[in-house]
Each structure stands twice: as structure tokens, then as C-alpha cells.
């Protein structure tokens, strides 16, 4: 999986959680919370959707890694690839 594909997976999740947000002009290097109105409950839903849809566990200590799309891709892409290798 490429980092762009990984970003798209995160965007897909946000689109389902917050269908009222405009995601067409998201900046990858800016914190999601600074461009979208997402609160801590929404944020926890992103983590839970990653587990539900992709079997990815994000421990609480790593939540900060999901702050922006770039940092999410940096953190999640190797995890996605490791999971794919196992299957």
C-alpha cells in the first residue's frame, strides 16, 4: 500500500463519520482538527473504524500520530503493509 492509498482510507472513514464535512480540499500536512470540526468522540470513532474495517489497532499512546493525514499515513502505512504480509 502506498501512503496516498492509506490517506484515502482515512479520508473514507472521516467521510462516513462526518458526512457534513467538506473533505475535498483537505491539506495533508495540517492537523485534521484545524481544518475540520471533529471532536474527541469523532476522533475515537476514527480509531474504532480502523479496527473494525481493517483490523488495525492504534494504542492510546499513539493517538497523536493521527493528527494530520501525513502523520497518519506515516504511522499507518507500515501497519497496513505488515498486516497484508501476514495474510
Amino acid at each position: 500500500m502506498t501512503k496516498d492509498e492509506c490517506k484515502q482510507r482515512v479520508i473514507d472513514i472521516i467521510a462516513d463519520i462526518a458526512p457534513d464535512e467538506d473533505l475535498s480540499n483537505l491539506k495533508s500536512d495540517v492537523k485534521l482538527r484545524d481544518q475540520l470540526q471533529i471532536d474527541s468522540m469523532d476522533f475515537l470513532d476514527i480509531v474504532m473504524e480502523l479496527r473494525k474495517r481493517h483490523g488495525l489497532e492504534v494504542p492510546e499512546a499513539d493517538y497523536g500520530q493521527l493528527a494530520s493525514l501525513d502523520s497518519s499515513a506515516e504511522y499507518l502505512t507500515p501497519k497496513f503493509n505488515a498486516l497484508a504480509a501476514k495474510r
Partner: protein
Amino acid sequence: MNSRAHYDVAIIGAGLSGLAAGVRLAHFGKKVCIFERHNAPGGLNGFYSIAGRKYDVGLHALTNFVKPGVKGTPLGTLLRQLRISREELVLCEQRQSRIALGPRGGASLRFTNDFAVLEAEVARAFPAQVDGFRRLAQRIRETVYSPGSPALSAREVVRAHVADPLLEDMLLCPILMYGGSQEHDADFRLFALLFRAIFLEGLARPLEGIRALLRLLLDKYRSAGGERRMKCGVRRILARGGQAAALVLDSGEEITAGQVLSSIGGPETAALIEAAPGAEAPAAAAPPPGRITFVETVTVFDREPAALGWGEDTIVFFNDSERLDYARPDGQVDVRSGVICIPNNFVSAPGPGLPDGVLRATCLANYDRWAHLPEETYRADKARWYGAIQASIRRFLPPADEAAVAAATVATDMFTPRTVTKFTGRLNGAIYGSAVKSLDGRTALANVHLCGTDQGLIGIVGAMLSGIAMANDRILRPA
């Protein structure tokens, strides 16, 4: 014993809080089943049919209304958490509502979904109090309703900002009527929550009433894989070692569940708990049953109530006595204060509105004086109080020609505290539950949690948020 069904979570009660919790849990892969004693979902916010006509119970107005696009409010949180889009839940806003106090409603404050209207009304009617009122509104905006924040008397806090006792009562009246489980006063945090919900946000209604919302929740729940057993309540919770070890259903069947969410009320849940065979008796700490209950009359017309002269008001909170007396009355009903609701005065989108004209009137009542009447007396008392309530509410509505009202009336109905208990199991018909809330949802058993009214959140939006919060905090991501 090995054939007992096992669930990750068993939910007691298919009301709004139980259904909302169910949607969250099923969505995130929990094996969950909702057990409901009644044959229809909804609980305290249900519906029934008589002669092909459908009546809502509970719902007057959905509070917390904000326009689509306004984010960061309870309604937005609720919709996101349940994955409901604004297109799926079409809401019709109120036209205007009033708080009317005094023998003929002479002291009146109009409000709409624009808070500036209420502010201007307070400035007009109570010019010396408006600065204090604005400071109170600011304090309310900053108040958080959580186990960590202190419980205060709402009357004391209001009084610290507003010196006129009439204005104090006018602010308390809608809040108590729409969610007061204590007599005379409320926890200020709850007061603030409901003040925000009613005045700072606003009132609306799904066009088809509560059925629209229930259908949406049931669809979400079903498509997420949730199970539901209707006409099958939970009869007993068998406790062992401080945990619910098994649930005995109305069918006599026994099931087990890792966690139990109970929406049926604090005292009602405590009453189900007993020791499992051979186990020690569990520590019993039952909160007291609530004392506040209501009767409601419903009058159906062949035309819009506005055509009978009753104007644009959607909701009218009224009280005629010197001071607001929010308490269990000594008599069967206290017609001095209550709530009028005209569902036709929610603005519907272009297209057909409601099929009938409807006028609802709600007044405080005494459960004991309704509970044990022989059937014949019960019916006669209902008919008598129906008339007394209509006479009382006329004082707070624009005048109408009574002959025209009678000619336009096509059906009437009335429910009493006894009806509430019969269909929801709430002790004393207490629709707002016990005066003692469990904000963290804890019960005497470690794996049994409360959601809904007795977890402390009130109203339709409150009930759903309670179910969501307890599903999240107690089951999906326990700290």
C-alpha cells in the same frame, strides 16, 4: 445449561437510549440483543393507534435543534455517532412558543429557535432583570453536566442572577416540565443542559413524529446486525460476586451477557436483581422511585388548530398560581400548570403536513390516585379531568368558539400515570425517573450499567446521547 444464549451485551428496553446504545454496539461488532417487554419500541417515547389513528406518547418537541451545518452541538454529535444524516432525519422547526404565567397567562414570554427573541422578551417584560438574565445565559453556556461537576440548586443559581420571583418561575417552568425529576427545583447542571436544549438551541419535530425516529434507529440497528426480542422483557438479574451472572427472561429462558445496559430506570433495575442460586445476597442500594408524573389529553380535529383561532404557538408552558408549584399534587391532577403542544405549528416542508389537527395538554398528576381505581371509576375520572384540563388550558390560548371546537373534534384520548406504568414499567409513572441520578451509570453490579433517564440525561436527544455515552464509556472503550 450449556444451551443458554450468550451475548456480549444485553440491553434491557427498546426505548431511545437502548436503541441508540444498540446501534453503537452492533456497529462496532458486539453481539448484542435488546429485550423489550412491550410489543412496540419507544418506551417513554412511543406511539399507539386507536381506530387507525396514530398517537405519539412523550414527544412534544425534539429539543437541541440546530440548523444543518451547525456543528459541535448535541444534535450533531448524536447524528454522527449513529451515522444518521440530516437528509435521513428531516426536522420541522417550531413557529413560536410561549411561557405564560398568571391567572390568565398575563405574564408572557415568547421564544423561538432564535435566542435573541427570548432575550428581547425578557428586556421588554423585565427591563431591570435583563442584564442578570444575560449573565445567567452565559453561566449556562459554560456549565458542564458530568459526574465531576458540583450539584447546585437551579433556583439558587437563577436567583443569584434574577431578582424577580416571577421571572425565576418563568425560567424554571419549562425546564421542570420538560425534565424535572425532583419536586420544586432541579440540579443546576440539568437545568443548564435543558435551558441550552430548549432556548439556546431550539425545538423541532420529525414530520411523522416519534415513529420516524424509531424507524431510523431500528433500521440502523438491524442493518448493523443487532438482535431484538419483543414481548420478552428481563424478569430477573441473577447476581453472583457483584456481577450479573445471568438474566431470566419473561419467557422463563435464561441467558448470559458479558455486560448489561439497562434503560428501564434505577429503582426498576435494582428491583430485578436477586442472588443467583447459592450466591450471597447482593448489596441492595436502590434509588427512590420518582414522584413526578403527568396526565396528557389529546384532542384531534378535522382542521388545523390555527383555523379554530388558536394561533401560531407550538408549545405553551403555563402556570396560574402565585408561585410555580412543581410537585406531586394531592388530588388526581393539578390543572394549574402544565404544557400545551400544537404539533401542527411546527413548520413542515412544502407538501402535506399532518393529517389531523392535534392539541395536546399535559398536567402534573398523582400516581397513587390513578393506580388502583376500579375500571369504571377510572374511565369516569378520565372523562371528568379531560374536561377540567381543557377548561384550564383555554385561559392560556387565544379565545376560540367552543361550538366550533366541539364540531371540529373527531377524537379524544387521555393517558394517565397508570398508562405510563402499564406500558413502560416505570414505578409511579415517573416519566423523568428517580430524583437520584447515576451520572456514571453505575449500579450495584459491576457489569450492569444504566442508560437513559436515570443516568441523568432527559428528553429525546438526551436519551439517545445517554445510550451512546454508556455504550462508548462502559463497553466500547472502558478506561
